[in-house]
């Protein structure tokens, strides 16, 4: 037994989030850890690594009872962790981030910068990532940052690598590379704890699975002995009725175009993007990492300034100066990085949820608390946000629940167009299906949605048509009828082939 | 130019029509300093001299740097109002080494380390210890049975605060019969002086003498007394140092009982001394300012002359 966590209890200000939870990992095995949003997976991990202290229970690692008081301790004991919220230093370079706290040294004890650079490059090459390792990390998007975090994790010569939703912002090719790495680690006898809400991934890579529910460990099983449906049932504690919920209800849009973007461009990342979204349509936006999807969405939302191109919404040419204008025009935007661009951590769930509709909640400047309360309660219930109370600071919520609150922030304003950038990132299967179903339902009522997702499966299931970007250009528009993974992959790789 | 024996080591000052002189002021955050600076500038203007003026903003170290920049600019003579006794020694020595005579204004430097007539020309000014002593002596004579004292000190660590306290305390102790209820810093400022006086009067309602190290704090103390429902000058004796117009007026009004003058108008005497030195006359080691003393007996008459 490499790791054994037994009867772990943990409460946060009186609310119990772990209740006699346990987790065991054998050397060299890949252990899946699953559960609904807020089940306690991340908390379990943080207790293991010493980021949190436990209230009760024991942790045995490599046969010895351990009591890590800081992540530095667990790291030096041989546990490498890739946390759910990417935790890296944005102003440091990529190379520094990979080697922070264990830099290669020269004979004088100084940093061996050349070696660090070379090694960083080599590691990233393994992930097909050919980036300038001397640039500050903040210059890169969520996916790249995630890859860097992974690179940092797997190069630590650890006995145990923990990946808390490391794949949530990766596309399939990157996931494949990651799995290759995990297999290599496995061959070297390194164990992995793999947390993910994408169940297919679990079947692809994991040996066993531990299921948590409401702070308890409810099942441990070999991966091959548990069917997907049963796994879901164990996680949710009930049947999942709406697993394939996002069925298209209409075969084609009714013709009225809501958004028409033509030849958008900005900087080097968006060069020439055109797309159109009909009223009541869910439009997908697909592309490889770095193809400019997020940037395009931000241009439409006026979060960034565009250099060229035209945008019309509802038949009128628009020139929003800032997001507030877009919002006033009925556009909502769920950004891909909830920690940096989404939540206001110290504010309560209530405040976070109603942030975008503040102007509407005011009567002569004063917030109408009763209405606010009512809206908040409705959406907490509708999306199944798990929180102690609406007054709980949002930072205390689990990642998936934070994501739900952010979705609610936009749904409650009844937008005409909702832009969602990786909307189901970090959301459990149950909730994901329900969110997709919800979006579809809203679309049927007339909402237009622009959905960016790295999960092709999800796009295929939900979108009425998908616009494919490559290298900052829109290269294809695929109607629902023709959507398939192969078709998308081919389109996405379009210019890639030329560049290589 | 030949001087007396005492001048042997001093750099000479050639006789010229126009000079470029430096004036290294300590700070300019109170009326007294402002009056001093103005007096120096006016006099220089009158004589048609060029005055290089620096302000050390209350830092002895910066003042040394200021003097150094004057030396670099090659002034003929430096008037220095030293912020402190000891830390300004390097400035005096640097000027001497550079062949530039220095005249000290209003505060002296440590006599163990630099000597008037050897290292610098002379010191023009009053004696802070003596000021404290003079006001104490007045109190001893005229206290009318009032003996419980609150002292508002100047900025902690500054030499006028230290000296005015020293002179006063020594004289009061020597006389006997007085109690110093409290002695706290009011930073030479009216607002702070008032706040401190308010608090001290509250803690010591029996106090019947307030001695402030400068006019500003005395005015603050008067405001505090009035707020506490006491009559300044009658219920409580108020004493001050500096003797600016406002304070002398307060003496006339009966709100301050006595004030020792510490005249900031150095200009005429400073440049006069400089002229004498240029002529090679022998200068005393200490050119004393003769400061007035205002009390009800002369305040009305002298009011017009107060600075």
């Amino acid at each position, binding site marked *: 037994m490499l790791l054994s966590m037994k009867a772990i209890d943990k409460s946060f*200000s009186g*609310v119990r989030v772990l209740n006699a939870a346990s987790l065991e990992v054998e050397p060299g095995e890949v252990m899946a850890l699953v559960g*609904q949003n807020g089940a306690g997976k991340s908390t379990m991990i943080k207790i293991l690594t010493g980021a949190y202290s436990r209230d009760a229970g024991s942790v045995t690692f490599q046969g010895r009872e351990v009591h890590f008081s800081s992540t530095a301790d667990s790291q030096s004991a041989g546990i490498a962790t890739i946390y759910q919220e990417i935790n890296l230093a944005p102003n440091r370079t990529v190379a520094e981030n990979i080697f922070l706290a264990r830099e290669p040294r020269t004979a004088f004890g100084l940093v061996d910068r050349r070696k660090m650079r070379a090694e960083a490059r080599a590691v990233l090459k393994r992930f097909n990532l050919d980036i300038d390792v001397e640039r500050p990390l903040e210059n890169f998007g969520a996916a790249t940052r995630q890859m860097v975090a992974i690179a940092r994790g797997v190069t630590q010569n650890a006995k145990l690598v923990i990946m808390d939703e490391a794949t949530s912002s990766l596309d399939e090719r990157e996931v494949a590379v990651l799995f290759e790495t995990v297999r290599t680690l496995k061959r070297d006898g390194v164990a992995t704890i793999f947390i993910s809400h994408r169940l297919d991934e679990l079947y692809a890579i994991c040996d066993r699975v531990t299921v948590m529910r*409401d702070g308890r460990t409810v099942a441990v099983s070999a991966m091959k002995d548990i069917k997907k449906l049963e796994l879901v049932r164990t996680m949710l504690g009930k049947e999942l*009725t709406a697993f394939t919920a996002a069925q298209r209800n209409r075969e084609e849009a009714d013709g009225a175009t809501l958004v028409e973007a033509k030849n958008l461009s900005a900087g080097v990342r968006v060069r020439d993007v055109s797309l159109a979204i009909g009223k009541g349509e869910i439009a997908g936006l697909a592309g490889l990492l770095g193809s400019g999807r997020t940037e395009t969405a931000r241009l439409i*939302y006026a*979060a960034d300034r565009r250099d060229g191109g035209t945008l019309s919404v509802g038949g009128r040419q628009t020139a929003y100066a800032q*997001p507030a204008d877009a*919002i006033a025009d009925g556009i909502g935007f769920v950004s891909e990085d909830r920690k*940096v*661009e*989404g*939540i*206001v*951590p*110290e*504010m309560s769930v209530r*405040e976070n949820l109603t*942030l*975008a509709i*503040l*102007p509407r909640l*005011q009567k002569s*400047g*004063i*917030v109408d608390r009763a209405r606010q309360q009512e809206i908040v309660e409705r959406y907490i219930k*509708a999306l199944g*946000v*798990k929180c102690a*109370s609406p*007054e*709980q600071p949002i930072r205390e919520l689990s990642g998936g629940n934070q994501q739900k609150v952010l979705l609610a922030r936009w749904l409650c304003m009844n937008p005409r167009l909702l832009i969602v950038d990786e909307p189901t990132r970090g959301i459990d299967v*149950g909730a994901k299906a*329900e969110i997709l179903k*919800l979006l579809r339902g*809203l679309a049927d009522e007339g909402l237009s949605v622009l959905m960016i997702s790295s999960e092709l499966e999800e796009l295929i299931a939900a979108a009425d048509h998908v616009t494919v970007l490559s290298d900052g250009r829109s290269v294809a528009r695929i109607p629902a009828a023709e959507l398939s993974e192969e078709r998308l992959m081919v389109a996405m790789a379009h210019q890639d082939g030329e560049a290589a | 130019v030949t001087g007396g024996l005492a001048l042997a080591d001093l750099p000479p000052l050639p006789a010229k029509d126009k000079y470029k002189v430096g004036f290294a002021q300590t700070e*300019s*955050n*109170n*009326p007294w300093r*402002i009056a001093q600076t103005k007096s120096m500038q006016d006099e220089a203007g009158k004589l048609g001299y060029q005055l290089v003026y620096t302000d050390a903003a209350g830092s002895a170290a910066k003042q040394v740097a200021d003097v150094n920049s004057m030396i670099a600019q090659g002034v003929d003579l430096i008037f220095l109002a030293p912020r402190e006794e000891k830390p300004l020694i390097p400035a005096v020595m640097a000027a001497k080494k550079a062949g530039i005579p220095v005249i000290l204004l209003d505060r002296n430097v440590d006599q163990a380390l630099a000597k008037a007539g050897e290292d610098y020309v002379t010191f023009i000014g009053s004696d802070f210890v003596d000021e404290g002593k003079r006001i104490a002596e007045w109190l001893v004579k005229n206290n009318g049975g009032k003996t419980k004292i609150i002292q508002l000190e100047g900025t*902690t660590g500054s030499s006028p605060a230290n000296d005015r306290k020293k002179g006063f305390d020594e004289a009061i102790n020597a006389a006997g019969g007085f109690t110093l209820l*409290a002695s*706290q810093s009011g930073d030479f*400022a*009216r*607002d*702070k002086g*008032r706040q*401190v006086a*308010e*608090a*001290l009067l*509250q*803690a010591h*309602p029996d106090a019947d003498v307030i001695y402030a190290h400068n006019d500003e704090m005395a*005015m603050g103390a008067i*405001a505090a007394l009035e707020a*506490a429902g006491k009559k300044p000058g009658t219920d409580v004796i108020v004493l001050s140092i500096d003797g600016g117009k*406002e304070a002398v007026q307060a003496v006339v009004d009966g709100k301050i009982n006595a004030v020792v003058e510490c005249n900031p108008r150095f200009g005429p005497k400073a440049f006069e001394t400089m002229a004498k030195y240029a002529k090679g006359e022998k200068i005393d080691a200490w050119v004393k300012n003769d400061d007035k003393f205002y009390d009800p007996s002369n305040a009305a008459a002298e009011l017009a002359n107060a600075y």
Partner: protein
Amino acid sequence: MTTLDTTTPAQTPAKRSSLIWISRYGTLVAFLALIAFNMAVTPNFLSWQTLNVNLTQVATIVIVAVGMTLVIATGGIDLSVGSLMAISGALAPMIFLGTIYPIPSPALAVTLAFIVPVVVAGALGWFNGFLITRWSIQPIVATLVLFIAGRGIAQVMTNGNLQVFRNDAFQFIALGRVFGIPTQVIIMAVVVALAAFVIRRTGFGRQIIAVGGNEKAARLSGIPAVRVKRLVYVVSGALAGIAGLVVVARNSASDANLVGLGMELDAIAAVAVGGTLLTGGRAYVLGTLLGACVIQLVRYTLLANGVPDAAALVVKAGLIVAAVFIQQRAERG
């Protein structure tokens, strides 16, 4: 609207709001401890006059510190408050004494003497906000500009000279009483109440907190971050202006060299002791009031007990750390 099956019912609501209250109790505990100490030790402590002295002395700090609380809540800081006090304090007498331009009607002169300085101070506050938002200059440096130059401006305006005056109408702001309560104390109370209300109940208050908590997210949620920031600096500037008026009125004299000197540190300390994080995203106006009272009481205690200045500095340092520590402990529960 499509509704969903809720997966998990929300857990038992914890008493969140009471937790926030406890965090304020931390400062309160420190405050009460000081009062108890004084009752035991300081002569003549329990009297109306003591209360009066302390309240009038703390009023200006509180007025400034409330503005500082808002600024800090947006993640900024305002070092220029002391200098703005000096400018406002220099301007007012110049107006009613007719130094700038003789105004025949005394009533008009006094009215202008109230309005103009506060507006000027607010405008300079806007300038701070402008620097910060237009060029993304860090607040501590942007306001350092006026910290240095502002006092210089006040000194240049008055040539450094003291302005002494007697003007009952103007000085009502500091010497007057309404129902027996000193005017400045009333101003303080109104400012505190207003700010507390704005923070808790108004949209603007929420915007301040959101901008301080996560500016990017706030902007993406349609909050005009730039405008919010500029506005809080205007408020901070204007409040500093009011405080400047109170100080000069109280002293019957305006000294551009000294009015508001060191105020920024007092105000920031009050904010911190009151439990507002200097990193932004939170604002406890009542906490700030208590924090200022704690600091004032510490000062009073040391003075009244004759602790020598040098030693008082050390004690004050210890007490500030202790107060903040208690405050934080209470908060962590």
